[in-house]
Structure formats: C-alpha cells, structure tokens
C-alpha cells in the first residue's frame, strides 16, 4: 500500500516537466523541491530526535556559499600578508564540498549544544545562523557581502565518454532536484529504520530508559545532526547553482521558519510529511500571487497552517495515516501520548 503510493507519487512528479511547459510554474516547482530537501533534513532532527534547529538555514546557506565559491574561485588576503588563491573548480566538486563542510558544521554545532539540550540547542542554532550571516555580510573580499556572488555556473554533469552536460534548462534542473530529493529521502528512510533510527526514537520517547540500555545520547544526536546538516548543504548547493546568485539574505530567519512550517504542517516524524507540507507551502505563493500582496501572504500562510493543524493536529501525513490507519485506535494513541508525557515529566 505504502509502496504503491510512493511509486505513484514519484511517477507523477517525474512526469511533470513532460506536460507542464509554463516556465514560471516549473521554476516554482524547482525552488520548492530545493526547500523540500531542506525541510526533509530539518525533519530528521525535529521529527526523529525532537531537537528543534531554529538556525537550520545556516547549513543550507553554507552549502550555497561553499558551492558557489568553489566553482567561482576566490583570491583573499590572510593575516601576515599571505594570499589564498583558489582557481575555479567544476560545480560538481562544489556540490560535494558543500555537503562535507555543511556536515562538519553540523558536527560542531551538535558538539557544542548536545551536552545540554532542548532550549540550549535552539539558541545555539539560531546564534550560529546569525554569526554565519554576519560573516557572509562582512567578509566582502570573499563573499562580496551584500553585493552578492553572481554568475555562479550551472551544475555540469560529467558524462562518461562524452563531453559534460551543463544543466541549463528548467527541465534539466527539475530532474536534478528530483533525483537529489529522492536520494535524500531514501537515505533518511534507511537511517530512521536502522539501528540508529531506533536509538533516536528511543531517546525521543524516553531518554532515561534509552541510556539505561546503552544508547549514547551525544553520539546518536550528533550523527543525526551531521546527516541533517549535510543534506541541507546539498540543498543549498543546488539552490546556488540554479538561482546563480547568492547573497547573505539566504540566511534570513524567515527561511528557517518556512522550513519549520513545511515540516510541522506535513507532519514531523513522518518521512513523507515534509514533502507534502513543503509542496503546499512552497506552491502557496504561486497560488496567492494574483490575489495578494507579498506582505499579506505571510498572514495567509499563518492562516493555512492553523487551519491544517486544527483539522489534522499531528500534521497532514500522520493524522491522515491514523485516520485511515489500521490497528491503533484513537483511544490507545491518546492513552500512550498521555503516558509518554507522564514519563517525560517524572525522572527515575
């Protein structure tokens, strides 16, 4: 059943560029897809470990800048009169480096904040995003500051035996984003259904009990943070090479909020949740554009989010799955939630 839905959904998404010719809509779908990848990565932390990264856009932005700078090259002065010169590398190398460096940043943020969690993690991630934004804004020699990095090359795929294929058209970029999104989805699915996913689940449900059977909190959360940040970095790289211009505004808090809304509305802790929530909130601006000023749209977002959570309190995917679900009756689900809360309040 689940497999059939997945196959139909993937086939439907893959068919879109074959019948949708409108470049404006295709563009909206591509940027939405990029944000869906970001939302999936956020969900790995928020939905599967319960940690809220309110600076998640930092990893996305770092991926974007790393990838852009790798493919544009730079020439900067270092202390002591030295210069660091980097000649441009192919964008695909930028994509890989974006993943690696964003993942490393995830590691350090995790290391800093996972000893004391909860609110502390939220604050560390927000501050991290702000610090990175200030660096991007003020290290003009490297990032051009508010003037933006421009003319970022499109991704080019090296084809064996042939010359490179540069992805210039919307259709090509659409498929690139779709493929990366599918890989990210599969990776997260594998992870949460593995030994590591069970450790994350255990920690989220009952940390005291989880550590008593040998689960290492710091290690488990750090693994989740690294993978989450790396995927966000990949999304940022796609963004930079598709939009081809990037400025410090990419780090704006509102971009994290957008991802959080995508995850919460679709259903945190569900694999498909961020995809569904992401498509709705990614495409909502397209639907609202003819009828509303951009400033008013945020109010509409809020309204839609509240309406969704009012009707489907656990988010679209989990709530619907439960409504059409098998075994577990409403009563058991409620009872277990209450018990979980009691357990959480009472340490051993």
């Amino acid at each position, binding site marked *: 059943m689940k497999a059939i839905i997945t196959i139909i959904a993937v086939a439907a998404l893959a068919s879109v560029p074959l019948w949708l010719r409108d470049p404006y809509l295709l563009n909206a779908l591509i940027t939405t897809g990029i944000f869906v990848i970001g939302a999936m990565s956020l969900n790995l932390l928020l939905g599967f470990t319960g940690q809220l990264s309110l600076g998640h856009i930092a990893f996305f932005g770092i991926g974007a800048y790393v990838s852009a700078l790798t493919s544009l090259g730079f020439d900067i002065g270092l202390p002591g009169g030295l210069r660091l010169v980097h000649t441009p590398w192919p964008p695909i190398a930028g994509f890989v480096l974006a993943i690696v460096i964003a993942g490393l940043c995830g590691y350090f943020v995790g290391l800093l904040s996972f000893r004391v969690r909860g609110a502390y993690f939220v604050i560390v991630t927000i501050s991290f995003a702000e610090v990175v934004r200030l660096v991007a804004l003020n290290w003009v020699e490297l990032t051009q500051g508010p003037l933006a990095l421009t003319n970022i090359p499109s991704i080019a795929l090296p084809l064996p035996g042939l010359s490179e294929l540069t992805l210039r058209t919307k259709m090509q970029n659409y498929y690139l984003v779709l493929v990366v999104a599918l890989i990210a989805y599969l990776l997260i699915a594998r992870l949460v259904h593995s030994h590591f996913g069970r450790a994350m689940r*255990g920690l989220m449900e009952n940390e005291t009990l989880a550590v008593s059977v040998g689960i290492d909190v710091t290690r488990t959360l750090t693994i989740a943070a690294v993978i989450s940040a790396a995927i966000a970095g990949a999304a940022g790289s796609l963004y930079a090479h598709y939009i081809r211009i990037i400025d410090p505004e990419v780090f704006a808090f509102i971009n994290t909020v957008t991802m959080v809304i995508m995850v919460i509305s679709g259903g945190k802790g569900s694999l498909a949740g961020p995809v569904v929530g992401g498509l709705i909130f990614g495409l909502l601006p397209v639907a609202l554009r003819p009828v509303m000023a951009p400033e008013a749209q945020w109010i509409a977002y809020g309204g839609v989010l509240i309406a969704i959570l009012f009707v489907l309190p656990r988010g679209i995917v989990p709530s619907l799955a439960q409504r059409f679900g098998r075994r577990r009756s409403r009563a058991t689900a409620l009872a277990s939630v209450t018990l979980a809360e009691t357990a959480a309040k009472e340490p051993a």
Partner: protein
Amino acid sequence: MTARNIAMTIDQVAVRFGGLVAISDMSFTVGEGEIVSLIGPNGAGKTTAFNVMTGFLTPSAGRVTYRNTALAGLKPHEIADLGLIRTFQRTSVFPNDTVYDNLLIGLHRQGRVRLLDAILGLPGARASERKLRQRASELLEWVGLERRAHDAAGSLSYGEQRLVGVALALAAEPSMLLLDEPVSGMNASETHRFVELIRSIRDRGITILLVEHDMPMVMTVSDRIVVLNYGRIIAEGTPDVIRNDPAVIEAYLGHGAGRA
C-alpha cells in the same frame, strides 16, 4: 556464603541531597551469579543506591566497582556497556512503540553496525537486523509477552508494562541486573510467574540485585539480603538470619504497627 567471585563492590558510598542524607557509608558486595535483595522502608535510599550504581547519580563519597572497573565518572550508557543493566521503579517503557519494537530498541547493544552499512543496507547490516528480530522474538517468549508483541507498550496493563521493562533490560544483555520493585503493581499470579522468571534469569548466569517490598517473594528468591534504614545498612545475611534479626523487625514493625 560459598566463596564466589565478587561481581560488584559498593565501598563506603554516601549520597547527600542538600541537607538530606539519603545514603551514608554503604558498603556491601554482590557475588557473581548471586541473587541479593536490597530491602528497607520507603525512603530508605534503595532507588538512590541504584542510581549511583548505574551512573545516574554521582555519590558524595565512596566508590562502586563492577567486575574490577571503577564506575566513577562513567555515563549511564557506558555502565550499561559493562553489562550492568537496571530497571526503574516507575513504569518505564517506550510507550508509542509496539512491545516488539521496544525490545528492538533494547537490543541496541547487540545491534551495533557501521553507519554506512546501515544506510546502504549492506549484507552485514541486514544480517544483524535478522538476528535482532530473532532475538526479540525469543525474549518475548521468555518473559511471556508473545501475544502482546504488536500492541503499543503504552496500552498494556500496568503489570504487563513492568514485564516489558524487565524484558527491555534483558534485551540489553546484562551480566548483572538491578530490578527496582519489579512486582509492584502485579497481581498474585503475575508475581508468581515473575519469581519463576527471576530464577530463569539467574540460571542463565546473570547476577541479580533486587529491590522489593514483597517480603514472601524476597525471602524465597534471595541468596542474601541487605537491609537499609534511613540510608544505613542495619543488617545483612541469609533470609533466615534477616527474618529473625531484631533490628530488622524493629525497622519494619517498630513504628507502632502490630506484630505479625
């Protein structure tokens, strides 16, 4: 007592919470394969002692050694890795997961695979998964929860949840098991079956330290009993010795209660 190898040594442990002395100068040992009970009135410091032994609490003084490893400074998961596993006095399960999935989480120590193997679904990781599932089924059968395998742990009766808690601890492959009031909330027949379970756990070579209020049960299963009162050990010995110890009778029955 026969000469056994010592599994755990508690040496002059003291715990203070602000002005309150929860444990003072506690010393005793538990031998390999032994069933030792730690008893005493409510508030005597039994759970606190468990918290110290499993790294959830740092003692104000003294040290605990398990199989020649000093536990000072080790985190709970590191102590679990030594094979020293506890259960909790308050019901403690993963409530939203099925009983079967609870055990899979409990099997964490057996299931360690490399991250990349797990993500790529390599044969090593898949074989490990099969082994875990096999082991979870065996554990369910051992504790008698097969029929509940696919129910959410949070939806079980109180007594059954206590059993899930023990099964979870067993999943972690203990060499020594600390049980904190395991039969509280169980009915008579559940308690009776639990006594059988404790014996079968011991028969597999697992050392047991038991905290329990059910005196008939304590007297039947224990090799040795340590009695705590107000954080101090007031008696220690075989069930027969403890039964007739005046200090113990005083502690349990001396507060104006009628003599049995």
